[in-house]
């Protein structure tokens, strides 16, 4: 009856320490790069005066939505409200974090999705990992992220990437696998190379599904901002935490509203970007 306790927790701790010891230099390097990415994006977003930025974004929304006036007006009103609440800089910090996290998740997730769609072994191997990434409470991997990358934006970004990448992988995989068999046969029968088949047939046909994955990825990234703030990420998330700690309902609500506005606008714009 005496089964020795399996030291799962200890093993993980040991592994994390081991990685930190032996790959510390590499981790620092990655950390620097990611930090640079986020701040560069933030600087770019803050480069324009808010009014001009809002105008630009509204015009973009107008054309992205195929001349959608409602979307353009909604975008303008929402962002003007953010500015009016005095949350502009915080919002741009949040936007920078969310967009760079989403970008990283997509840059890794889409190719992994494609590869897993083409390779049965990878497909089977990756599935439990994805399940784990999606179901494991995100607080759990905040800790190793903190150990690897220290306090600040970068561990927040890593946690966000881990959380928002699975749907991208899944939907890219699904999109590619759902390309009708006859269309794949067309590509092959006419003598396409593997790359031509992917770029000229599979990806374009799978694009709507992949775009749904992109949309999901951005939404999940946004939902992580408050949690990321717990390990030092800046922006609206931090403001929400601050409001909670101070029991400042107004402060928390305004910051939360800011997140919602950004979420809705990004959601609508990315939805319209996908071709139907």
């Amino acid at each position, binding site marked *: 009856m005496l089964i020795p306790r399996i030291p799962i927790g200890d093993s993980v701790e040991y592994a994390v320490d081991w990685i930190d010891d032996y790959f510390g230099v590499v981790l620092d390097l990655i950390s620097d790069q990611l930090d640079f990415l986020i701040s560069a994006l933030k600087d770019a977003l803050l480069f324009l005066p808010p009014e001009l930025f809002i105008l630009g974004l509204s015009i973009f929304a107008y054309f992205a939505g195929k001349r959608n006036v409602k979307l353009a007006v909604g975008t303008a009103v929402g962002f003007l409200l953010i500015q009016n609440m005095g949350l502009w800089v915080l919002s741009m910090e949040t936007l920078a974090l969310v967009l760079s996290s989403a970008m990283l998740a997509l840059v890794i997730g889409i190719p992994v999705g494609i590869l897993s769609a083409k390779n049965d072994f990878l497909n089977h191997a990756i599935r439990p990992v994805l399940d784990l990434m999606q179901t494991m409470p995100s607080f759990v991997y905040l800790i190793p992220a903190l150990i690897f990358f220290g306090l600040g934006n970068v561990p927040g970004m890593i946690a966000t990437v881990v959380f928002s990448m699975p749907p991208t992988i899944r939907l890219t995989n699904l999109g590619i696998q759902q390309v*009708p068999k*006859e*269309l794949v*046969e*067309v590509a*092959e*029968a*006419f*003598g*396409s*190379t593997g790359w*031509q088949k992917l770029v*000229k*047939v599979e990806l*374009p*046909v799978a*694009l709507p599904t992949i775009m749904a994955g992109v949309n999901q990825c951005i939404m999940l990234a946004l939902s992580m901002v408050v949690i990321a703030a717990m390990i030092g990420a800046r922006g609206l998330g931090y403001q929400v935490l601050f409001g909670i700690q101070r029991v400042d309902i107004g402060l928390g609500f305004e910051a939360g509203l800011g997140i919602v506005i950004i979420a809705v606008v990004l959601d609508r714009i990315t939805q319209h970007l996908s*071709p139907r």
Partner: protein
Amino acid sequence: MDRKVKLEIRNISKIFGKNPLKVISLLDKGYSKDEIFEETKQTIGLNNVSFEVYEGETFVIMGLSGSGKSTLLRCINRLIDPTTGSILIDGQDIASMDAEALRKIRRSKLGMVFQNFALLPHRTVLDNVAYGLEIQGVKKEERYAKAGIAIETVGLKGHQQSKITQLSGGMKQRVGLARALANDPDILLMDEAFSALDPLIRSEMQDELLSLEDAMQKTIIFVSHDLDEALKLGDRIALMKDGEVVQIGTPEEILTNPADSYVSKFVAGVDRSKVLTAEAVMWRPEPLVSINSGPRVAVQLMKEHGISSIFVVEGKNRLLKGILMIDDAVDALKSKKSFESLIRDVPSVPPEMPLNEIIPLIAGSEYPLPVVNESGKLKGIIVRGTVLGALAMSEDTGDTSDLETEATGAEVKNTAEIESPERISGENTVESGNAPESPVSGEADGELKGKAPPEIKVNRDLENKDLENKDLENKETGSVDKELEVNAC
């Protein structure tokens, strides 16, 4: 007539499953498909299929669902890799090619048209058609020019920039066809290409394919489960069952000479009149009289064979000159008219004319219908009974005894009917027992061609009349045989 072999399939087998070689060895030991499935849970897609397709031929692969048609077609461009066997295109083995060589062959020699069109939804018509050229790296102007020509060929001019979703089914398949044609491949593979279209459009597309085929002389391999379509399009047809080819032959061969009961069941109920041609139902033209022999010989022959008219031919090549009626000939013997002035012109039909066009002609004709090829040679003759007999076969291809009653029971007026109408009317009807050699009876093995017309007893007064000319016979009979051009269709 040796034609160039374009595609040669040699002993192709395809096993779907994890351990195909085991199945192959079981097959070699003579196990059946079902037994093997029981034992190994593997499916036999194709079992030792071999055939050749000639250049410029339209070869139809036909069979019930699941018989392996698509599998066979997809082996030809290796969308499916055959388990064993070889596939030679212009003598090159596709089955053993590496990816690079295969890609070259696919680009240059093989085009494919798909059942559900399989157009790329994100591309315009033009870009769909240009796809094959695009992946070969052909420059934009050139590939658009070539694609434009292909689009015109299939009658879609003006739709180049249309979106795929804007097209009807028929138009979509035209795009599919144009896409395959744009590469100018030698061989077109078409998997149930018209099955998804409604009947009118389908028939229209079939006609179009036929005229394209006339103009371009491509080798076409066409999969169909529709017999009418197969018969209409195919120069030859391969009938498949359970992954094996049961019979290969021209439409007529398949109809008139089914290899087994599966094939005859398959062909039962088809509208034969569209498929059977003059050539398939004609009889050996016998007897004939040479234009050099004169009326006496003619009368003699007609008497011998009990017929009242005879075709007159000239020379070794049996050039048809016309028909001689017995009355005319007898009159001529009395009045000493010239032989040639007695010969009447008759309408004739070419060997490839389908039966449904022959029926109205023969219905209105008093004589048998001569079948004459392009060079004027008399190939055979068609009488009403033959036509009816051939059509009656469609009622039940398996059971010939039925057919016999069918043909004869209908009181078919046979060759006798060609005799001068007013004298014989009514009396010369063939009675059931009298025409045991009607072409259908006992001829399930398909020896229609070259069958001589039944001998029919001519009524009394015709014979009496012949007796009057008895004296003439004796002198001429000796030379008759030499001058006759008999047999040898």
